[in-house]
């Protein structure tokens, strides 16, 4: 069964059960999203995908709102643009979004000026946590979108090693009692890195290469292959720079993995370096 709705005046047909965001993507509209992941349950945390829906008093998050028949959605009104601009400004003023894919373009698109809150504005800046050889946590880049918590929880890994602790600017993603990652329940599947939209969670390889200035996405190839360990057949995207693997993801839309891997698939490639 399909549903027809109108987006910025244009009729769009989507499958029953689709979200407004699915419809926007089908319509070819670039919609900013941060906390949304196609392989995760929407949590409505970041508020950058808001749209106007006729008959709704408030703006609605496109990522979680189911499309309904004859729904009238507007994405380019002053109200929507103002909301997106302000949310992006708040986020970018308090969080380092310099390596978050897409954010730079959205800041331009919506005319956001995070610097207008002044040089002494509050930020979530803090030292990077480097506690092992596999990945780092840079909470100065964390927007508390909950994606890592979800991937660690019921949406994928079901390990529940992390959650949000604290309030306001003190709120961070934390292990139990804030113990170091190797002492926590973490099983190093790295599914949190796979979903992180801002680079707050990063392969140690990528972090080190960025630190010493050798990270260069233009020189990287991405090759899809199959993991060499157990018989599940997880699809891997090998990011290779200068004949070395620098990062491993899995396609989000793959039947076997839904974009998620285990420690062996994500990190167990050193033997061929």
């Amino acid at each position, binding site marked *: 069964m399909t549903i027809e709705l109108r987006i910025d005046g244009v009729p769009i047909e989507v499958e029953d059960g689709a979200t407004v965001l699915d419809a926007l993507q089908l319509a070819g509209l670039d919609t900013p999203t941060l906390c949304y992941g196609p392989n995760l349950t929407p949590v409505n945390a970041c508020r950058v995908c808001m749209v106007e829906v006729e008959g709704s008093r408030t703006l609605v998050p496109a990522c979680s709102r189911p499309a309904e028949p004859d729904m009238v959605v507007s994405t380019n009104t002053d109200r929507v643009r103002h909301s997106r601009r302000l949310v992006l400004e708040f986020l970018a003023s308090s969080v380092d979004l310099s390596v978050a894919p897409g954010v730079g373009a959205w800041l331009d698109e919506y005319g956001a000026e995070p610097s207008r809150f002044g040089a002494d504005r509050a930020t979530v800046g803090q030292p990077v946590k480097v*506690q*092992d*050889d*596999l990945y780092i946590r840079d909470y100065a880049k964390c927007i508390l979108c909950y994606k890592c918590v979800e991937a660690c929880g*019921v949406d*994928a*890994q*079901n390990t529940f090693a992390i959650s949000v602790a604290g309030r306001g600017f003190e709120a961070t993603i934390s292990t139990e009692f804030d113990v170091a*990652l*190797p002492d926590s329940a973490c*099983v*190093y*599947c790295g599914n949190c890195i796979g979903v992180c939209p801002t680079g707050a969670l990063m392969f140690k390889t990528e972090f080190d290469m960025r630190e010493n200035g050798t990270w260069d996405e233009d020189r990287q*190839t991405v*090759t*899809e*292959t*199959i*993991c*060499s*360990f*157990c*018989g*599940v*057949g*997880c*699809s891997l995207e*090998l990011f*290779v720079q200068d*004949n*070395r*693997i620098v990062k491993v993801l899995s*396609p989000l839309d*793959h*039947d*076997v*993995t*839904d974009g*998620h*891997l*285990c*420690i*062996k*698939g994500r*990190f*167990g*490639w*050193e*033997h*061929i*370096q």
Partner: protein
Amino acid sequence: MWGSNAREAHPIFFHHLLKGVHNGARLYAVDPRRTASAAWADVWLGIDVGADIAVANAVGREIIAHDLHNAEFIARATTGFEAYAAAMQPYTLDYAEQISGVPAEVIGGLARDYATAGTAQLCWTLGITEHRSATDNVLALINLALLTGHVGRWGSGLVPIRGQNNVQGGGDMGALPDKLPGFQSVEDDELRGKFEAQWGAPVPPDKGWHLSLMFEAMDRGDLRALYIIGENPAQAEADAAHARERLAGLDFMVVQDIFLTRTAQMADVVFPAAAAWAETEGTVTNSERRVQRVRKALDPPGEARDDIAIVSALAKRMGHDWGYPTAEELWDELRSLSPMHAGMSYRRLEALRGLQWPCRDEEDPGSPFLHGRLWAEDPAERGRPAPFTPVEWIPPADELTTEYPLRLTTGRRLDSYNTGVQSGGYSSPRRHGESLDLDPEDAAALGVEDGDRVRVISRRGSVEAPVRLVRGLRPGLAFMTPHFPDDVDVNSLTIDVWDPKSGTAEFKATAVRVEKVG
């Protein structure tokens, strides 16, 4: 889950399983250890090692006794039910409890829940197959699926979860003693003739030896040269010291591997190979029979070449110029010879990210599950009925005695893999090296504490390792892994008594005693 710790050994499969659990599926775990998988179960059956058939047979008897079997399916799609039912009579719940240590009412609960579920799957791994009764263990589970009709339907089935990324594909491609690619019998003149015509060469018409028979043939001197590709038997075989003696006695051994493994160090000739999964083109076949493309992302180091190039170059030296076919050319030849792969062009495999066999032509969407024919109305389509095969429980070969009172079982840990050839390369924060995992009660009786070094002694060998006290074992049960054989050669303890049908050794059941060192 029967004899499977998929949470650690097949983590992404377990993600799917947990979706089912969150949707309300009931999960039973039959495992001697309360593993990370069993921790998710509604019910854990902490079975004594090797008691699987006793429990499975009791489940079957209980299902029949409560009239919960699927009489219509049995009548239509199976043979041998009466004989099976009669053979199950001795396997009362109480008898199964005596053998397995699992309370009778818990076994009864499994029987009732399994039989009355709308859909149900039996998933297993090496806890079932690394026993001298391996094949019988599997048959005992197959009998349960036939009894209840939990086979050949979407959501129901028998699920052996393969342990290696291409062990399914290896068998599919004919790396079996009696099969040509596509499970075509080497003893069938017509099928063999098809391959001979394609290859322009005679194919030996007799079945060969499986691994265990090969090692026995080495003792007799009937097998004197060995070409090993991507296997590390010097450390992976049960009774590894004995296996190394046998390998050392060969006249000639060639090893083709990505590293100079312990086995490669014993070889006369070593062919350095490219890592198939990231340095070559080709396909692998996963546990769901899904053929998937592997692709070259990296250039192999030094003189390493891909397996096709090595084999082709070797053939050329032996007087057969095959040229250097591409992986796709070889695959297309395979498709022309193996009907179940015929529809799997590279184009389709890439576009669809894999196809599940059988896939007989380019219109065939592949087969998400097998044995659906058993449900067909039309007898012709239904074909040969599936036979019940009654099997009897036998205890593990390596007997527990006062001299060797502890049962040692082996398995994998999350961050490591087999003999560590691949997984040893990366630095896992969760890795603590090899240990003898003990139940605190046994440790107290032995007077050892967490971290103490002990000597573990079996009838074949002994190793030293630190003790780790773990929850999830039971008194009398110890656990080790094969992951660090250079440090602790665990397979020098294991027994090479093997299943006469499958050839698999009884890695899961070793009798040991433990002595404190120093």
